[in-house]
Structure formats: C-alpha cells, structure tokens
C-alpha cells in the first residue's frame, strides 16, 4: 500500500516536471521570437542576407511545393468524383476541390513541405555554426548574431510563404482541372466558371493568413533549435529533428486554430 502511494507521488512529480519543462520551453521560444522580431525591425539591416534567404526559402521551394499541390489537387478531384457519384453529386468536383485546396490543403501541405526543406536546413546550418563557434565569432566581429542570422531568415520566411501558398493553390486547382477535364469528362469552360464562382475572398484571405503564420513558425523553429544546439554532430542532428517535428506540430495546431476562428462561426 505504501509503495503504491510512493509510486503515485512519483508519477505526479514526473508529470509536474514535464508540465514545468513544457512551460519553460514555451517561455524560452517566446523570448527568442520577441527578440528576433524586435531586432528585425531595427537597423542595422542586412539586405544581402535577406535576399539570399528569400531565394533559398522562396524560389528553391517552388518545385517541391508545386509538385505537391499538383498531385494532391488531382487526387482530391478524383476522390470527390468517386464520393460524389454515390449520391448524384459528381458535379460538385470543381467547387469542393477549390475550397479544399485554398482553405486547407494548399497552405497546410505547402507549409509542411517548406518546413521539411527549410526548418531542417536552418537548424543544421545554425547548429553547425554554433558547435564550430562561428556564432560566438560573429559577436567578436562587431556583428549581432541575431540581426545577421535570425532576423533575415524570419523576415524572408514570412514574406515568401504567402507567395508560395498562392502558387500552391493555383497549381492545386490546376491539378484538379487537368484530371477532371481529361479523365472525368468535365467541360473545361464550365469547370473554370464553377471554380471561380465558388472561390470567395475570405478563402484566399484565410489562406494568406495561414501562410504568414506558417512561414513564421518554419523559420522560428529552424532558428531556435539550431541556435541553441550543443554537443557536436549528434547535437546538430537532434536540433534538426526537433526543428522539423516542432514545426510540423505547430503548423497543424495553428491551422486548426485559424480554421476554427475563421470558419467556425
């Protein structure tokens, strides 16, 4: 009986530790984010670093994001056609495809693909710079590591993600259109007209809001975990994994919250 009580206490203590550690992590990330945002707004700026990051995050993500959207758009149209045919609603393919892509799949899958590409690369690069003392070296070379390394990455991700998601949305709808008109027998003029008819401003607006938030999460997680990595090559590996996993979970969670706020009422 005594040992049972002791075990219960130990369990509670472990739970307490986990909760405190979780809250402490949230505090640390929030402070990191606050400092990054504050410094991003104040000079000195590093425009060359910003352009470089826009190229790395935005331009080089285009093929991955485009392919993802094309494949998922086509698959979505096929599934809606099969599902809809069961109750004579196959004609809803263009409407449901465009809403599904623009509201959810474009931003979420785009965000996840960019997180996989970019958060990991940022964490690995900054983590390597940390363990080889390059970040300490910046401070001795009259350069604030936050301004030079973190701020340009966060600003670039926040600026480029909405554009990437716009592209993902367009290509996703195109994927549905190609499959529907070539395989399912839809008339191309009617398909486009229905698509435009059902596409509402708030769909695109919510898509852009999501993209901006996801861009922030992607860069923040990559930078935070890379910047605080320690313990050589293994530490950099751990930082990279943590960056991708935490970015994925935060993207899906924030997507849920935004969806409920915008479309829930």
């Amino acid at each position, binding site marked *: 009986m005594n040992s049972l009580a002791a075990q219960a206490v130990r369990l509670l203590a472990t739970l307490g530790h986990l909760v405190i550690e979780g809250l402490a992590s949230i505090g640390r990330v929030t402070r990191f984010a606050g400092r990054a945002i504050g410094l991003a707004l104040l000079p000195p700026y590093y425009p060359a670093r910003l352009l470089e990051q826009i190229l790395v995050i935005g331009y080089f993500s285009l093929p991955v994001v485009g392919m993802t959207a094309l494949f998922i758009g086509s698959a979505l149209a096929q599934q809606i056609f099969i599902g809809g045919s069961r109750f004579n609603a196959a004609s809803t393919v263009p409407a449901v495809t465009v809403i599904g892509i623009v509201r959810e799949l474009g931003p979420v899958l785009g965000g996840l693909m960019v997180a996989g590409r970019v958060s990991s690369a940022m964490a690995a690069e900054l983590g390597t710079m940390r363990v080889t*003392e390059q970040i300490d*070296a910046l*401070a001795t070379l009259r350069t604030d590591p936050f301004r030079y390394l973190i701020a340009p990455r966060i600003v670039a991700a926040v600026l480029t993600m909405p554009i990437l998601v716009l592209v993902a949305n367009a290509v996703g709808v195109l994927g549905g259109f190609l499959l529907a008109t070539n395989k399912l027998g839809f008339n191309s003029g009617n398909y486009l007209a229905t698509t435009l008819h059902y596409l509402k401003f708030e769909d695109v607006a919510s898509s852009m809001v999501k993209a901006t938030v996801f861009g922030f999460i992607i860069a923040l997680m990559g930078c935070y975990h890379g910047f605080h990595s320690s313990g050589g090559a293994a530490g950099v590996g751990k930082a990279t994994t943590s960056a991708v996993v935490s970015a994925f979970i935060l993207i899906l969670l924030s997507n849920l919250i935004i969806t409920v706020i915008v479309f829930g009422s």
Partner: protein
Amino acid sequence: MSEIPKIALKGLRKRFGNKHVLNGVDLDVCAGESMVIIGGSGTGKSVTIKCILGLIRPDAGRIEIDGVDVTDLKGRALAAHQGRFGMLFQGGALFDSLSVWKNVSFALDQRQGGTRLKAAAIDNLARVGLGPDVADLRPSELSGGMQKRVALARAIAPRPEIIFFDEPTTGLDPIMAGVIDHLIVELVKDLKITALSITHDMGSVRKIADRVAMLNEGRIVWQGTRQAIDETDNAYVYQFINGLAEGPIKMVVGGH
C-alpha cells in the same frame, strides 16, 4: 603595480547546473602584456574568456576593462564592448559560406566598398604570411594551419585592443604550431595588443607568455613570469608542466 590593469577579474564565479566551473577567479592583465592561462581540460579556461567577452554572464564577481566595470553590459553597450576584442577560436571558426577575404574583412566597415575591403584583407593576410592567392579560396579548401592563420588575420584586422587566443596550437603539427606561436608574439608586439591566451601546450606557453597563471578547479592557484614556472615549488605547476599523473590536480573524467 600602481597602473590600472587592462583586464581585471575579481572573484568571478559561474556554475552550470551543479558543476561549479569558476570558483572566484582573480586575475589582472596589464596593458600590452601577453598573459597565458594554463590548466587541464574542463578547469574553466574557456568560460573565463567567454565571461570577459560578454558571451556568458558570470553568477558573481566583477570584470573591469581599463578600470571600468563591464560585468552587466547589455544591448548596444555590450556590442561596443565586444568590438574592443579580437579572438582566435580553437577551430578557427571561419565562416564557411564566405571566401577567405570576406572572412578577414568581416569586422571592417562594409561601406568602404569591395575593392578597398579586399585590399585591407590582403594586407592582413600578408601579416600572417599568406599571399593574395588565398584571398578568393573558401575556408574548406585550406589546411588546418592555414585556416588558423586566416582566423588570426581576421582577428587582428579591426586592430582590437585586446585579443584572446583559445588553444592556438591545438591540432597543429609542431612546425606549424611554432609558426603560429611566432606570429602571435610578433603581432602582439607590433600592434601593441594586450593578449590573453589559454592553452595546455607548454611549448607554446614558453614562447608566447610574458606572465603565466594556472587555473585549477575554477581558481587561480599560481601566477608568475614565464621564467618562474620552471623555478616555482608550487605543486600544481610542477605536476602540470611535468605531465605527472600523481599530484594535487585530480583529472575530471569527461568535460562539460
């Protein structure tokens, strides 16, 4: 000595978790002198330097530069403080995404334009015995000794008042280690820089030090001139310079 020391550490303490790394370090370094801190791995040598640089905040104690307390600097004041130092990192810490000349001219005023920056970089490379042909290479294309020299050129390029050398000869062959030691002595004299080095390479200590301080378990246990290390009867110094397993210094298994 009546003059104000360039660097004064007073009762510096720092702990990480349960590990007390610095246990009250007291040390004065005079302007223009070359001080070397010796001690085994994990005795707090790197942490001492990072505290002076403002990269790590000490738990207690004070750091004074030219008699001015710099322990609690923040923001722009901290950045200005850090701008007075140069540092040669153990692994060089060159930026691998930038060419050699961009590394060397990194801390210089970037507004003066690429041509002048590159000329300044080549000047500084010449000071460490490297020709202009390495300027356009990437750090990864250089040998370990050459990377150290480029890192040295980068550290002296902004003409800092104080320069730190973190294990300057670790990982180099004896000849290259000799070359780096010689460069350090020359540069410190020529540019009138105050130097603070940490090393456990006794050959290097005998070449670069004016004065030596021995750190053990987070405290300075001995200090004196370069000549005095061979004459002292201090048991820590005797054990360290002779590399003896028996003595007052207990080797910690596994560093931080």
